[in-house]
């Protein structure tokens, strides 16, 4: 065992050293809806600064619970503005580091090109068996979906058809495998290069749910991490905003 450990450290130690001399790695907790854009953001960060990101995806509520319990994340890219604010109140985030890096849009989407009309009438007609959404307790996009159903007065009618993903990522996977006919997902999940990848969607009017203001926050753990600071900087720069916009986010 000892020999094994020695060998292991002989192998990994040089790697650690060279990483720390060249560039830092930031552990970033990222809300599931931002899964695609974060790849492009990480690539941009590495190109411009040499820093790299280790990304953990999940529902915002789950990531919050993990941070509360000591998860070693340097930055949180949440899907709401409440969670970063709460972390600041909890003393787990750097005060004053919060800012909105994107505003998300909710869509009703189906992998079937004929299923969802541009006005969302399909929701009233109810010609579908299963409707996927994210857990409203822990996922801001799920809470937004609940708001939409409430505003339309459809909550009671739709309740028996709802299937719940633990994050917007799972809601999307339920819909994309066809196990749910339609689903409330993030616009960023169904766009590619600014266009609908496949299927059909209803871009839900902003008036039906409160804006999904997605805030980033520097966590206590990342206070001295150069990569974390560089990421926060990058997310504020104009060209990265264009990139983020191409995934269907607004500012």
């Amino acid at each position, binding site marked *: 065992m000892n020999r094994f450990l020695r060998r292991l450290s002989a192998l990994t130690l040089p790697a650690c050293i060279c990483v720390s001399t060249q560039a830092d790695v930031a552990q970033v907790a990222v809300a599931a809806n931002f899964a695609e854009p974060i790849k492009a953001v990480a690539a941009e960060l590495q190109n411009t600064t040499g820093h790299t990101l280790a990304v953990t995806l999940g529902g915002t509520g*789950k990531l919050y619970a993990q941070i509360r319990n000591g998860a070693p994340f340097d930055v949180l890219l949440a899907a709401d503005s409440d969670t970063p604010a709460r972390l600041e109140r909890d003393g787990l985030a750097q005060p004053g580091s919060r800012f909105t890096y994107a505003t998300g849009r909710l869509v009703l989407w189906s992998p079937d090109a004929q299923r969802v009309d541009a006005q969302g009438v399909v929701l009233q007609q109810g010609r579908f068996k299963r409707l*996927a959404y994210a857990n409203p307790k822990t996922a801001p996009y799920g809470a937004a979906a609940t708001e939409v159903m409430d505003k339309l007065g459809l909550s009671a009618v739709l309740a028996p058809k709802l299937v719940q993903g633990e994050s917007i990522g799972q809601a999307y996977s339920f819909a994309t495998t066809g*196990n749910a006919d339609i689903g409330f997902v993030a616009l960023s999940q169904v766009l590619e290069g600014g266009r609908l990848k496949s299927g059909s969607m209803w871009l839900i009017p902003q008036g039906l749910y409160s804006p999904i203001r997605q805030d980033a926050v520097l966590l206590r753990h990342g206070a001295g991490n150069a990569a974390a600071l560089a990421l926060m900087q990058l997310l504020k720069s104009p060209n990265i905003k264009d990139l983020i916009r191409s995934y269907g986010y607004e500012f």
Partner: protein
Amino acid sequence: MLPASDLQAILLTLEVAALTTAILLGVGTPLAWWLTRSRSLLRQPVNALVALPIVLPPSVLGFYLLVLMGPNGTLGQWTQAIGLGLMPFSFRGLVLASCLYSLPFMVQPLQTAMQAVGERPLEAAMSLRASPLDSFFSVVVPLCRPGFITGTVMCFAHTVGEFGVVLMVGGNIPGVTRLVSVQIYDHVEALEYADAHRLAAVMLGFSFAVLLALYAYNARRRAGDVR
């Protein structure tokens, strides 16, 4: 006292576990017998298949089930054709998934017990002109009683403890697919630690009691054998 949503999850979990155990008793018994007696070339591959759920991460099983049972999957197309509809997010689907997931916990104890029976009791039964079916039920089953008890208990308890597969194909629907393990996960994620504690304690108590009962039974039986 537990809130209604927790009681509902507990009842549902017991239902899934009981149904799964009943089905696996029916399917697992002939399968274990075949695996014990057969000289077929397929025997070892089938053995390996049966044991797969022990080593596979539940995410693998859950992912394949989601794809296979979906509208584009082979299984999904078949269940739709025979009018059962789609399996994911349904009680039936959950029972089906549990049957796959808990199969080795039923089959392996049975197999061990059946191997221990050996040839002699069967030869004796045959010489008394018992039919194969008769000798199976009058000789093998009674001799394999400990195997049946272990298999049933482990299968039931293991299904109660199922989490990953339920999370992946369940869709978290109250009263349909929201089992205790998922309910606890939900509480934890929402930082409802008091609720999580209550339900987790129930699970811990249950699992410990089941295992304790099983070990006590086995120890008493062994002591009985010696005498």
